[in-house]
């Protein structure tokens, strides 16, 4: 399949991106799609492995049949590639833009060469699909009469909703914000994902019968109990929203925010909303605590807002430039990752611990007191004599999320018997378990970050699909085992 010698003949190429000086002037996407010819050539690099590690346990969480659609693109069967892609992934337009692509780090070609640009090919496929009008609503042929409530409209909730609607169930998605999408809409900066991309998918879902109840905060503005009474099944997919805080002196000063207070505001502004007293980096010395993707997003927004300086602090040591030996192929590599936002300008510091936020005299943060640390036996040890101060007008905490919000929804359901796991996430199994995603509360299921803890969009989609399958089987009263024909643990693969 593909071109057997393609990997020898062609070099890895990535899509074009706009130059930094141009792209930081706006909030729009700046990475271009592959041309068809580029996609074909890059598809030809796929070796159609006997064991595609990109697709296996070491690769894509939604089990995309990557070699198959690489081949289809090489052969210019775009529509079939789209069908194939959609058969495992409801929203390739999200993952094709946002996924860190564990598939590529597991790509066999990556052992001694540069891996196939799987992610960009994925994007090329879905973008062309929309362009050509191939992505059309696929409403169910038969309705089951069963009602399913889904709380939370991030990628997990949306994937579950679409799957279940197509299987003929009546699906209602509850969203506390005024628009669905969850982190996709409010957390991911527009320059990585323009929001009309979510909207067009929502249009399709609506046409397939999914009902969205926005501005409805279940457990706050809407009693959670009502869901249990009015629906045949309930899926909790509210994400992992509780941010990890930095509890050090000066934390209560002004000018210190969680990333998720800062990022959504800009997205809302971009969407035309008016925000009073928007937190902005303009003209400020910005310090971002946390070296992950959210921190990187803060860098990108801060640059666009016109920050005076941007510094990103990470307590872990600087990873190596190349794959670290502790994470050999096909594992997700420990290595230095430089995002497009980083390229746009940031001062990254490693092995830095913040000891104190210093007051500028106005009950506002003016500086950070930091020191260097070393990481030993799982602990960070301060290195004496390395203390220093950093000027700071705006501090953004992007230190990750600990678990879902326990207030409201979860506390109401806990009274009914919903249990949490040791990490504060909803207790439910996954994987090959006979009852994946089933919580301790009857007819209540959980998926996405709310169950798994903070993770990738692609995992959220995988969870949503798996959960939908479990819900469907429970609603249709069929044991998974009896239906396991053709495949052993088959994901529900309705497109």
């Amino acid at each position, binding site marked *: 399949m593909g071109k057997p010698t393609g990997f020898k003949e062609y070099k890895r190429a990535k899509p074009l991106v706009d130059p930094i000086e141009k792209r930081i002037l706006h909030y729009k996407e700046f990475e271009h799609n592959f041309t068809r010819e580029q996609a074909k050539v890059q598809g030809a690099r796929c070796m159609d492995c006997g064991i595609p590690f990109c697709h*296996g346990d070491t690769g894509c969480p939604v089990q995309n049949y990557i070699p198959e659609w690489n081949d289809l693109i090489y052969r210019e069967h775009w529509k079939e590639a789209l069908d194939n892609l959609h058969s495992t992934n409801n929203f390739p337009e999200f993952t094709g833009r946002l996924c860190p692509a564990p598939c590529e780090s597991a790509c066999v070609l990556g052992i001694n060469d540069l891996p196939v640009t799987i992610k960009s090919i994925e994007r090329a496929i879905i973008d062309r699909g929309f362009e050509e009008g191939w992505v059309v609503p696929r409403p169910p042929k038969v309705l089951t009469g069963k009602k399913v409530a889904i709380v939370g409209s991030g990628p997990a909730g949306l994937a579950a909703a679409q799957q279940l609607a197509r299987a003929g169930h009546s699906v209602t998605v509850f969203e506390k914000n005024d628009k669905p999408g969850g982190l996709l809409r409010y957390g991911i900066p527009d320059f990585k994902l323009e929001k009309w991309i979510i909207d067009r998918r929502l249009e399709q879902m609506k046409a397939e019968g999914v009902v969205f109840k926005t501005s409805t905060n279940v457990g706050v503005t809407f009693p959670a109990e009502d869901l249990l009474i009015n629906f045949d099944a309930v899926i909790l997919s509210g994400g992992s929203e509780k941010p990890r805080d930095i509890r050090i002196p000066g934390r209560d000063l002004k000018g210190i925010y969680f990333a998720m207070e800062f990022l959504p505001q800009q997205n809302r502004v971009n969407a035309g909303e008016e925000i009073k007293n928007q937190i902005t980096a303009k003209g400020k010395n910005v310090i971002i605590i946390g070296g992950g993707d959210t921190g990187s997003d803060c860098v990108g927004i801060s640059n666009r807002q016109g920050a005076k300086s941007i510094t990103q602090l990470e307590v872990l040591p600087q990873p190596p430039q190349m794959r670290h030996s502790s994470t050999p192929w096909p594992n997700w590599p420990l290595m230095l990752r430089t995002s497009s936002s980083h390229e746009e300008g940031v001062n990254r510091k490693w092995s830095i611990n913040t000891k104190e936020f210093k007051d500028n005299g106005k009950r506002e943060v003016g500086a950070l007191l930091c020191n260097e640390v070393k990481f030993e036996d799982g602990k960070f040890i301060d290195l004496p004599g390395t203390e220093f101060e950093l000027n700071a007008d705006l501090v953004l905490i992007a230190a990750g999320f600990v678990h879902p919000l326990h207030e409201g929804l979860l506390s109401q359901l806990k009274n009914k018997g919903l249990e949490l796991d040791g990490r504060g996430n909803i207790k439910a199994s996954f994987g090959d378990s006979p009852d994946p995603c089933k919580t301790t509360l009857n007819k209540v299921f959980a998926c996405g970050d709310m169950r798994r803890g903070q993770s990738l969009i692609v995992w959220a989609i995988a969870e949503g699909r798996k959960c939908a399958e479990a819900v469907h089987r429970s609603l249709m009263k069929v044991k998974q085992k009896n239906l396991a024909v053709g495949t052993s643990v088959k994901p529900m693969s309705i497109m």
Partner: protein
Amino acid sequence: MLELDENNLNDRENKIQNAAGRGMYNPQLEHDACGMGFVADIKGRKSRSIIDKGLDVLKNLEHRGAVGADPYTGDGSGVLIQMPDKFIRKIAASKGISLPKEGRYGVGVMFFPQNAVLRRSVETIVEKIVIDENQQFLGWRDVPVNPDVPGEGAKLMQPFIRHCFIGADKRIKTQDEFERKLYLIRRIIDHRIRTELKLDRSKYYVPSFSSKILVYKGMLLAQQLTAYYRDLMDPDMVSAMIMIHLRFSTNTFPTWDLAHPFRMIAHNGEINTLRGNKNWMEARQAVMESPYYGKDLKRMLPIIMEGQSDSATFDSVLELLVMSGRSLPHAMMMMIPEAWSKNDLMDQVRKSFYEYHATMMEPWDGPAAVVFTDGNVIGATLDRNGLRPARYVITKDDLVVLTSEAGTMIVEPGNIKAKGRLQPGRMFLLDLEKGKILDDEEVKKEIINQKPYGKWVEDNMLKFSQLPDPPFTHPIDHETVLQRQKIFGYTKEDVSMVIRPMCINGEEAVGSMGTDAALAVLSENAQPLFRYFKQSFAQVTNPPIDAIREDLVMELTTYLGPEQNLLSETPLHAHRIELNHPLLSNSQLEKLRNITKGHFKSTNIPILFDSTLRHNMRERLEQVCKEAVSAAKEGVSLIILTDRGVDENLAAIPSLLAVSAVHHSLIKTGLRTKTSIIIESGEPREIFHYALLCGYGANAINPYLAYETISDTFRAGYLPEVETYELAKKNFVKAVNKGLVKIFSKMGISTLQSYCGAQIFEAVGLDTEIVNKYFTGTATRVEGLSLEMLEEETVRRHKAAYDILSNPYSLPAGGIYHYRRDGEHHLWNPLTISKLQLSTQRSDYKTFKEYSELINNQNKNHVTIRSLFDLDTSAEIVPIEEVEPASEIVKRFATGAMSFGSISWEAHTSLALAMNKIGGKSNTGEGGEDPKRYIPLESGESLRSAIKQVASGRFGVTANYLVNADELQIKMAQGAKPGEGGQLPGLKVDKIIAKTRFSTPGVTLISPPPHHDIYSIEDLKQLIFDLKNINPKARISVKLVSEVGVGTVAAGVAKAHADHILISGHDGGTGASPIASIQHAGTPWEIGLSETHQILMLNGLRDRVYIAVDGQMKTGRDVVIAALLGAEEFGFATAPLVTQGCILMRKCHLNTCPAGVATQDPELRKRFAGKPEYVINFMFFIAQEVREYMSAIGFRKFNDMIGRTEKVIPQRLHNHWKARGLDLSKLLFKPEPIYPTNPYRTKGQDHGLEYQIDHELIKIAQPALEKGKHIDIAMPVKNTNRTVGAMLSGELAKKYGDQGLPDRTILIEMIGTAGQSFGAFLAKGIELKLTGESNDYTGKGLSGGKLIIKVPDGITYDPAENIIIGNTCLYGATGGEAYINGVAGERFAVRNSGAYAVVEGVGDHGCEYMTGGIVVVLGKTGRNFAAGMSGGIAYVWDPKNQFMKYINKQMVDVETIINENDFYEVKNLIYKHFEYTESKRAKQILDNWDEEKNSFWKVMPGEYKIALQKLEEEKASETSAELQKRSREEIEAEAANG
């Protein structure tokens, strides 16, 4: 005394029966092969001396027979002679019996039970029936025997032998009529005794019962025969002919009755199609009628009795045909027809004869040399392939000696009239009454003109083109294709990896690496029924055929419609519909459905059932069978089983089940030959499916959904390579046909007609009920799926096709060929591979244990049989320090046979280095080895592979190669593609590979499917002997692949004196193989190993051989299970490659391995990242794990663990929806040995090397060997001197390597008839000159030496028209010269890669697969000359301009010589030929050179020509570069000087 014997006998029988019932032994799987022949006086003069000569000849064939655990118990020998009237009259008189005149009495030679009471009851029946049939019962005579002569085993089994005298009733007019009567009487007696007394053939058997012939035979060595039967020494014992036979049985418990000759034949070879032939005979006998027997015919049935050997069965049917009125040669021509349809040289009358008879009976196919007689004529014939040797000499005093080899009887050169050999499909006959020899042409001419067969065929045979167009043809329904594909279980892989490549290339797709997915019965998924069957294939006892290169013997034509009475001949017999191949198009099927022409009538029987009703499949299946039976009774001649019409509720009975069930019901009701079975089904899609359907009785198949799938695929644009759907379909059908031919050629079967119903499969995981009832006669050793579970499986698949959750737009993934997370479970998967790589690279045992846990613990997804075995840990734990150290255990390990060529230099040497370091063994594979690897590295490490493989291609198998080995492994089969050859495309043959394989860069290399020197077990014995000679220190290993009967074959191999037997699992890897072979041929090693171990134990042969096992060995637990099942050594291939970077890319065949492992691409090889240390780590990890298990189950010493099956506890998978029926107890049975033996190797084989005359040669040649001095030797030789010169060559090669000594350093002259393998592997510096003649395999592997065979002085026949050397001479020669002053047999210079030879004529298939060297033929060639020849040159002298008819032009160009160099070369060789042999033919040509030189053809492969040109060009450019460089240097030097 007698009682004690009986106890012993009973004990022995109990042991055997136990082994057969509860273990893996199956008496039906016995094979045999032999030496055979006859001596006869052409004029029919009876004499004592004919018998003496025959007995001498028999003794001279002794080496072709075999003995078992007891050296005095032979597998059998015997003679058949004409009735010696004087002698019989004398012995009868001594009993007071007076006989009627000659021809009016018959003698029955009868084997009776020793028990007197029982014997008496048998005799009473005999007497009564003779009288009831109105003949005179004259009396009995005890045949005097010496009961002490046979070996222990034979003694125990010996029958009480009596002669019975019968006089002809006066109403009997002729002797032939009397013979028919005797035949009837014998058959009636047989049936009465079998039904009334329930005696099997070991207790009651009749060697002969005739007025014309008499048989003496038994489980005796040739030497013992006369000592046992005193009769044979009687001076009055006279005959004009004697047929002799000496048996080599793979079977372990030969019995007296199975010795040959039978009543009409003695046979060397094997009938591959036996199961089918038996079934068809059973079906046919119901409709037989004979004017000779009338109602009595029914009393003789069944013609074939269960439990007979293939030869005995053949004999029974031949007898029937002759007794019912056909002449003996006529009957032989029916049963073993020569290949006719593709033979352009055959005349039409003869073709018509065969075509007509093909409508009556399928060929009894297999390698066969048969001598036959009815007392009046005696003759011999070879099967269409001519795979058994038979040489004859005719003397001037009218004697004919025909035997398996020349030289068994000394004939004065001056007395020789002619020497010849039997040729493929040809017959040789002596009419003793008329006193003349009839050659093939003469015999057959009369027979083929008996009736107007041609006209009968012309007038009655229907062809499709004669049938009117059908009123309606099913259209392609694109709307529902996907839905129906799902119903029939199609996967994405079926479409993209199976069907699509077939449509593009007209060939089956090729894949690589082994299979590691679950067995069908263990798979969680619904599997097509096809997947429960595994193909059987030929190994050792019969050869596979090269269906491509030897296409002329292959045949796909079959006939539809009813067969007529086998015992008559009418024009109506030919009234059948001719079918060119079994796949029917939709329109052809409709033609049949609507047939009105002729006597044909068709009916449809739907094979659909209601999937919502329980047991409905079983009910419907029964009904289908009933409907078929009543249709056949009503005269329906075409039964169309159809599954068109499946819908949401109606599911299809698996097509294979329906076909086989109907086939067997029709056989059982005697109706099978009245009708044909046509299956119209959506299910079959891959070649293997079609093979199964044919193999279980389908006469024709309409795979409508496969066609629709092709159309759909084409429409969707997935076949851009093909212009039209029609072409894609045509390619598909072509691929299926090619694939079918390939599948049956693997079993050595040539025609679809004999394959149909032949059931050459083994079931793995079906329960006995299904098999016995619907697949009667198929082997199944692992119980499993019941009919109910099969129904559930079918229903599940059906429901899943309508499951709302399944992807509505595409098929399920499949994941059988390539890993898919939602497909079949594979043991090699991302986790296991990455953990294994990591652990061995980092020397991290903890990670290795994580890896092995993933493999060993298959509780979630069972893949292998061994995953169902638990180990008994109830014994006391042995402290781990007390367990044998890992450094000892690793010595039992070897890496797999992977050729340099299939894997890269880096990978190949890395494995060798590692294994040498730890004292294990690496294996060259079949690609030769670069001699520089024999020299240790400076570090003291060695790159030399301890195991040198000898495969069918014999690439680089030189004397030097063979002496540089600790083990020589004869590869009979390969797990991934047993029964198949291989092909290394020219583009992969780079310089270094070409060098190690003795070929030319860029030239394609073909390994033939069979070893052309192993067509049967006694041939293997010969090759083992050859190899042992050249390297007496090396162990000789034989690699077999697990399949039903492998244990019996292994027993034969042990008797053939192998030191080591490797049992490979079906799942072993490959660098390139058709995907169906990877998946469907062979069985798991657990089954083959346990069968082998049990049978060797039972026979007392186990302690003579090492047993090794391989095939997807991955962990220490695998090793422990294998040891407990009986193995002492272990092979690993894929896993060590994984440590070297292999990631199961499965692209080895494309040369694009991105890990640099399985590629020759220099750029990709740079990516190789393996290190020997990783392999060493792996081996030690495995050993460590083994030790942990040994400690847990209580063993200190590895050897103590071997064969201890009681330590294995089979799991029952109670919760698995279909594997819950699995029963593995047979695999764990421990047989009680009949002869004492240890469960592992403790004693060696007796190779008999001490008698070799090479010892003498070596002694005399010492000065040459030591100092290179010239030595002359002269010595006589005879046919029992086998493999002359090999041991000497070994000594020479050890010292001087490939360079050898200067030409003619050692000169050896011999006189006489040399035995087989004369001059094998002859090394450079030796000139071996034989005056006389020699046998098969002369010059095998010629390795630089010079071989001269010339006729003796004083002969009067023309050497250029007479045979002088046997078959398969110069096979695999790599260098040297040969001058042959006469005609060679079939397959001269096959796989020659460097020798120069001159010969005065060759048989069929000359120069096949040749890749180098030059062959000059100064005479006629046989057919198929130069097939598969990819290199080298042949010059053929053809003054009568006939050669073009005989050549196979697939790969070669034929032209006249124009180049002066070529003329010079040919003339020079002929001149040398004359110089060495004084050949008259050579002289005649040289004398008239200017004229004769224009009578030569030059045969040269096109690819070779191009490759040579390229080499020339390269050399030229190198030289010019060199010159340029030099001139520059000179200029510079001058400048410097200046």
